[in-house]
């Protein structure tokens, strides 16, 4: 059968689930960020697939473009926070950052 919308959506679902798993289980903060990137990629893939096979315009591509830009911004801030975190706690384990707990 020809490659259609469903193929891309299932691939994106797989990427999303992998990203979700990485986000929830990894303890390294940078690992969590990598999970977020996977999820965002899955979303971009969905948008582009929909825009090609469902709508037929480039609006989905524009949305994906914004996602890529925002992901870059988010990664920059996150890395800055992680560097600070590492400086304060001497570890990158996300579970150790529980100082605000009562």
């Amino acid at each position, binding site marked *: 059968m020809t490659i259609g919308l469903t193929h891309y959506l299932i691939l994106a679902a797989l990427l999303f689930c992998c990203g979700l*798993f990485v986000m929830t289980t990894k303890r390294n903060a940078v690992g969590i960020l*990598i999970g977020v990137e996977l999820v965002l990629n899955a979303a971009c893939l969905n948008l582009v697939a929909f825009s090609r096979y469902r709508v037929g315009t480039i609006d989905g591509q524009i949305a994906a473009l914004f996602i890529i830009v925002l992901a870059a911004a988010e990664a920059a801030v996150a890395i800055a926070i992680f560097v*600070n975190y*590492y400086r304060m706690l001497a570890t990158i384990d996300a579970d150790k950052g529980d100082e605000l707990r009562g």
Partner: protein
Amino acid sequence: MSGEAIAFYMLAVLAAGSALGCVIATNIVRMALCLLGTLGAVALLYFLMAANFLGVIQLIVYAGGTLILIVFGIMVTSRMYGEKLKPRRSEALIGALVVLALFAGLVAILWRGPWVTVVPTEQPNSVAAIGQALLGTYLVPFELASVLLLAVMIGAAYLAQPAARNGRGTEREE
């Protein structure tokens, strides 16, 4: 099987395999390398979907910018033979169950979904079309994104500056 199908399946295997590699890998730099595989495969999938501009932007911004930033962050915060941050057994088990259930549900829905699709048409000049859309219909989000990027630049520079604002800061050269 058409050339497009062969290309799709190869890229899909690469993307999915790299994503699974991200899940399995315990070494954080290997995770980043796996992410590179996924990003590259997804970029090539964009090319396959005739979204050339997006594929290139994915490569230049994601793989050439964000991923390098991530590896940079890893280098600053992790040591090769430092503590291994393995996920806890129970967390991994519960997470795997939930995610597998979610994936099964998604596939079930997507497979049976009555998608009304259109026959994909080739955009004659997609780069120009994207440029016109960005400066036309999507002008406000475009400008907001630029303001956001400025804010992020200043914020990240402020956050990462090495001033010992906190008494607990461990003095460490970067």
